[in-house]
């Protein structure tokens, strides 16, 4: 989320490819988290993340910095396209992903029970996100896990920034409703 810093690093990349490392390290966790939410299976996420960075490495000499196109938007656009191909070519949309195949989830205390609970929560959130419209799935995952700004998401998805904001609010609210419906006992249900 630091355009100017990215721009500086990217300028360095032109003359010194090792500078790409800085951007790679900055974006790796965010890109992985986004891709993992989109595809679920850790193995597939690893492949797609690796391919994304490979594309970025190969394409960066031709990348032209524009005010509205940050490096983040450019990188996540590559990942977004690869994920689209992943679902189109491999027909993975209906696949069930077991807990064992899911990636680990960040926890503050790595006790087994907490790890398992977080993984189950991840699986549940993924399932709920999958019920949103495709556009909102993208907006929510790019926002929460790619940590992108709304205007960057707008660039990736070809939307107006205000539309992204609208999708985000509605998508989150919808997700929340579904989460409560799935987890809160009927006697505790609230009127929203």
């Amino acid at each position, binding site marked *: 989320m630091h355009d100017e810093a990215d721009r500086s690093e990217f300028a360095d990349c032109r003359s010194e490819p090792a500078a790409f490392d800085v951007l790679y390290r900055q974006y790796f966790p965010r890109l*992985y988290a986004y891709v993992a939410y989109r595809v679920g299976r850790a193995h597939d996420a690893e*492949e797609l993340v*690796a391919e994304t960075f490979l594309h970025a490495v190969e394409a960066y000499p031709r990348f032209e910095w524009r005010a509205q196109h940050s490096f983040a938007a450019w990188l996540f656009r590559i990942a977004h396209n690869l994920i689209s191909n992943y679902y189109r070519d491999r027909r993975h949309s209906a696949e069930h992903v077991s807990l064992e195949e899911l990636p680990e989830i960040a926890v503050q205390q790595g006790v087994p029970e907490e790890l398992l609970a977080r993984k189950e929560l991840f699986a549940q959130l993924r399932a709920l996100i999958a019920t949103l419209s495709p556009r909102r799935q993208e907006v929510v995952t790019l*926002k929460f896990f790619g940590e992108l700004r709304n205007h960057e998401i707008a660039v990736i998805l070809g939307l107006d920034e205000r539309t992204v904001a609208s999708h985000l609010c509605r998508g989150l609210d919808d997700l929340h409703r579904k989460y409560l419906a799935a987890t809160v006992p009927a006697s505790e249900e609230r009127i929203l």
Partner: protein
Amino acid sequence: MSDRTEHPFEPHEQPVASGDQELLATIDTIITGRTLPDRAGDEGEGAHDLVAFAALVARTVPLADTAFHARLDEQIPLRLEQQRSEPDGLDMSVMQQTDTVEPARLDLDPRGQRRSGAGLGRAFKHMAVGIAAAMLFILLLMILIPDLRTASAAELRKIAVGISSRPGGVQVYSPPPPFVVFQLSPDRLPVGFAVTWNRYAPGSSGNGLVMTGGAPVRVGSDESTIHPVAERAAQRNWGPDPHIVIVYESNDGRYLILFERKAAPDESLPPGEPRTVAGNPARLDALDQGIRLTWVDAGTRIEIESSLPEQELLALAAQVKGTQIPGERNPLEALFMPHEPVFCDPNQKPPSGVLLGKVSGQKNRGSVRIEFQQYPNRPDMIANLSSGANVPDIRGGVYEPALAALQNPAIPLQRLPYAAVSTFSSSESVPCLVPSSVVKGYLVIEVWEQQVNIGYGGNGAAMRERGIQALLEEIKKQK
């Protein structure tokens, strides 16, 4: 929150309601800090509150497997170097289209390889500890000298030497890139042998880049080296041709030196008693303190010099084979190459790139690293020097400026956060890498065109004078 109606995908949906601006700002706060704003109350399992729920989502972050992350860390610089040498990169259509993306693939996935054969999977598991230990030498030769990393990978593509095992055996070394050196597995070496020194030199066809690692340097007349064979090897002239040397030693004085270079078309073997190694004619000749076996396999001339008994040496030699045959990739490489060293604590891995920061507008000439090591049963502190250069003259281009900088008290030392920068260890019980307990401190000297930066860790700052002596010793060897 008004209007919760589901909308389809038109690019210009109705704008966000004004009442949602606060929610948007809160989401940004949550994502930035991965924390729950004060007003949201308890996040809790139920996450009744929308903001609390947003925080719950934001904190459920998938983490990449550390081994995968480490492999990618290693692959990206190699790809960058390849990309630089192959300017026709991928077209930017990947940014515009979703229909034509057929990316090349990074060879990263050990699980995929395990799926390809249970036997290979078991073989890998059996050798994992040995591989993890051997990966130390990747660090020594590439990560250790990060500025040379990409350059060395490019050079490796130009040369044609290398050996690895036959299928089912144990590999030693297997270029081309990624540049990987493997220690012989313990079950193939006599107990107690370990790599003590190695050298990669592209020779006159390269740009003069030479990398060495692991050789202990005697500091002062009252100290001795704990690896005498390595020290002798470090002072030996190995010739101008591209070559690789790996020295193995045991604490009881036994040793093995592996030397390899590309064989000439009419390569002849030295005088000696005829032997056969894996079907190839070989020669065995006696040395003052051991024997030497020489043969040519698949275009690689291989010499093994050792104090081992002849039969043991022959058995070991039978596991070694030249492999640098364009287009015929050794299947074992696919198994071993993608595996990168796994650090128990990723924060203890020195990052790629220079450790002390880049100097704008200047090219890096090379680096020198001196680790000070204290072994349990030895009173002497060992100065372990490793270095690399991307200039032809390592003495004049790197060592001497580094020495001058160390001798200049006006140049400050920058503290580095790593417990070790060169020497890491693993064991059967701890199969990931941890900084070696023998490392008590280190100095890092990075030489640029018009500037030298010095860093230290542990008690390295107090060892500046020892570092000067170590460098003087190294310069003396170069003369």
